[in-house]
């Protein structure tokens, strides 16, 4: 395996536009810097500082931290750990599935030689071309094929090369996979079985219209499918293994910016993490910050800034499964804090934030001290030059926290 590289979350390096943007919004002047030029000096920034994932408390930096996670089974708690980044952890998870489940198969565009993001690297050599194989470029075909396989008792692990390419396969997922169990009246042999559709998602700073989208919001209207978005290596491995055994179709979206960026100590053994359950990343009594994927680290920074500058204690929740999301954990938290801010990089309209906001106001109405606030991407396509403008940054989240506190 390629040794894990220590690096800053490139959200921070791609934030080179931000100081000039902040200025441009007021003065309407244009910046001489291009979207891909080196990062601007950070001396004048107060909030949008580079995010060092290696300092994040949401990633296990030491073996002790990794092994003390309460959700791990006891057998794993006494095992060893290995330092892995996100794509290596996914590779680890996939090989665990292939080792333990002889009926599991991986296929997709270019997966044989490791895939665009190296997630399936070495799997062909280890498990052979009967179990790891390339498909033609045909997303609808891949999805239908996967549903047929998983419906006949196999564990299908198709990869869609980018979440942006999911849409040709959307019909198969929506009308076939998600409803099969329901429309056969629960007959044991007619459902999509163990089906995990993996795909990289999210912004990278320069992916643009067709390579940086976050389409998770589209799944909110798709009942019968679960959507999981891990925030880091430990989560990815555990959730992936659980997904492959869940018996329901699962869309597994991997934030592609974290593939090499997020590194942590990952238990070597086999373990599952619960699908459909959120995780409280840090406790707080004043504001509930709900997010998932890449932006939990931005939330961590915003929560830290809120503590330092406003004296506010923020409770940060990682949804992990964004559909159907864990209402109990979120509602319990908001009933405690009385304030809720939802953060994601997908568009505001039709995003997870709408769903969370509506549920929270319905279930916590009398307890709310301020309107549920959404800090999200704007309602535009994802433009090449403006990715860093679209993705919420620390300042925007901090502003959201400030607004609900001062309301």
């Amino acid at each position, binding site marked *: 395996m390629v040794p894990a590289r220590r690096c800053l979350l490139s959200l921070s390096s791609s934030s080179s536009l931000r100081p000039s943007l902040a200025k441009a919004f007021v003065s309407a002047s244009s910046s001489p810097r291009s979207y891909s030029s080196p990062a601007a000096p950070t001396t004048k920034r107060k909030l949008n500082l580079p995010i060092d994932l290696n300092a994040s408390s949401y990633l296990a930096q030491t073996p002790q931290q990794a092994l003390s996670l309460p959700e791990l089974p006891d057998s794993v708690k006494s095992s060893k750990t290995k330092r892995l980044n996100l794509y290596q952890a996914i590779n680890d998870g996939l090989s665990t599935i292939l080792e333990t489940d002889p009926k599991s198969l991986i296929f997709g565009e270019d997966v044989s030689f490791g895939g665009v993001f190296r997630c399936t690297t070495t799997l062909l050599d280890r498990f052979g071309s*009967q179990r790891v194989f390339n498909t033609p470029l045909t997303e609808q075909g891949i999805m239908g094929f996967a549903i047929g396989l998983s419906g006949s008792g196999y564990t299908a692990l198709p990869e869609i090369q980018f979440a942006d390419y999911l849409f040709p396969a959307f019909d198969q997922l929506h009308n076939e996979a998600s409803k099969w169990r329901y429309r056969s009246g629960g007959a044991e042999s007619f459902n999509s079985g163990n089906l995990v559709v993996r795909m990289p998602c999210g912004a990278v700073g320069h992916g643009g219209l067709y*390579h940086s989208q976050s389409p998770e919001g589209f799944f909110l209207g798709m009942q019968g499918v679960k959507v999981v978005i891990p925030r880091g290596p430990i989560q990815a491995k555990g959730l992936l293994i659980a997904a492959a055994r869940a018996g329901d179709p699962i869309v597994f979206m991997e934030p592609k910016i974290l593939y090499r960026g997020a590194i942590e100590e990952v238990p070597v053994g086999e373990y599952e993490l619960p699908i459909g359950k959120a995780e409280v990343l840090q406790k707080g009594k004043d504001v509930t910050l709900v997010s998932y994927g890449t932006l939990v680290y931005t939330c961590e920074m915003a929560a830290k800034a809120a503590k330092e500058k406003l004296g506010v204690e923020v409770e940060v929740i990682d949804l992990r499964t964004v559909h159907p999301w864990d209402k109990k954990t979120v509602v319990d938290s908001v009933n405690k804090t009385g304030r809720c801010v939802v953060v994601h990089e997908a568009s505001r309209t039709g995003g997870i934030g709408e769903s969370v906001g509506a549920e929270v106001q319905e279930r916590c109405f009398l307890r709310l001290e301020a309107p549920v606030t959404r800090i999200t991407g704007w309602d535009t396509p994802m433009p090449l030059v403006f990715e860093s403008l679209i993705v919420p940054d620390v300042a925007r989240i901090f502003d959201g926290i400030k607004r609900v506190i001062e309301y």
Partner: protein
Amino acid sequence: MLARSLRSPRLLAAPLRSQFVAAAPKPLSLRTVTTDAASASVGAVPSDAEQPFTVTLPNEVFEAYELDAPSRQLEVTKSQLRQMYFHMTSIRRMEMAADSLYKQKKIRGFCHLSTGQEAIATGIEHAITKEDAVITAYRCHGFAYLRGSTVKAVIAELLGRKDGIAYGKGGSMHMFCKGFYGGNGIVGAQVPVGAGIAFAMKYEDKPNTCFALYGDGAANQGQVFEAYNMAKLWDVPVVFACENNKYGMGTASNRASALTEYYKRGQYIPGLKVNGMDVLAVKQAAAFAKEYAVSGKGPLVMEFVTYRYGGHSMSDPGTTYRTRDEVVNMRSTQDPIQGLRKRILEWGVLTEDELKQVDKEARQLVDKEVVEAEESPVPDTNFETLFKDIYVPGSEPRWTRGRTAEETHYY
């Protein structure tokens, strides 16, 4: 017997073995259409640059399916040959400039180059008019330039600058101009769109056609076949044109396609396979295809046999799934630009010095426009730019809130 053995648990433990043994790579299908770019014979070449003369293409340039192949004789003029050479050289230079800007990290993200495939864009452009339409996939820089955009606009778009075709909001794949309906990033998605464009032409009784281009990888997308069916059903004057460069991303065509004779894939639509490295063959075939479509005979499926020198995109070195020798061999013996150059010299159309002059013109044009593109400012970093072009101007929401009250954007 078969059914029983399929149910046996032992077979289930080794899933699909037989199927994948059967699907092991087949030997590369014979390519009777060659990719030789330099042969063709010619009679007397007139001294007047505008006077047409006849060129006879070699035997191996076309292969037809349910169709009488077009004539191998075509009329060209010296100035046309010069222009074709200039166009191909300019595209190559532009792509190399993009390559170098990418390596300098000035262009980021996704960038697909068409080096090696220049003859297709050039040959088609020289066979159609500006009233005809072209729509293609992501390998679109050359098409955009030839259809009427500029090197500056293409490169500025790649760089994410204000003078780019989509104001820097698109980047590679997002190139448009009159008669060119875009590069498209979703594999195969442009094919039914191309059928729709051609249907509009038929509806309006226009004597025009739409070339809907796609790669050998995209040829396996379901919507390509849906487009075939609709186009044949309604005799839509669309030309489905597959650029077969032998690799769909990192997978060789024979590992991804059950039938690699892409010109036969229309089944009930006649097909024509063309040497896509020979710009004159491409021109002749494209002119034939336009004539065929416009005359009311319905769609045609074409296959241009070609080769891409680079990887699928800039992040693909292009050497893990094919040998270096293969690439070197194609570059050195089948290059479309060198092929035309050789013929121009052999036929006495231009002298060595005159060709060098054309090289210089192309170089100067591209270099100048690349500099201008680099000098283009980044787009204004405000909501005006960001929210522009989502809805019909005037029908947008009244205002969009920014981070703070001062940032609220009123349409």
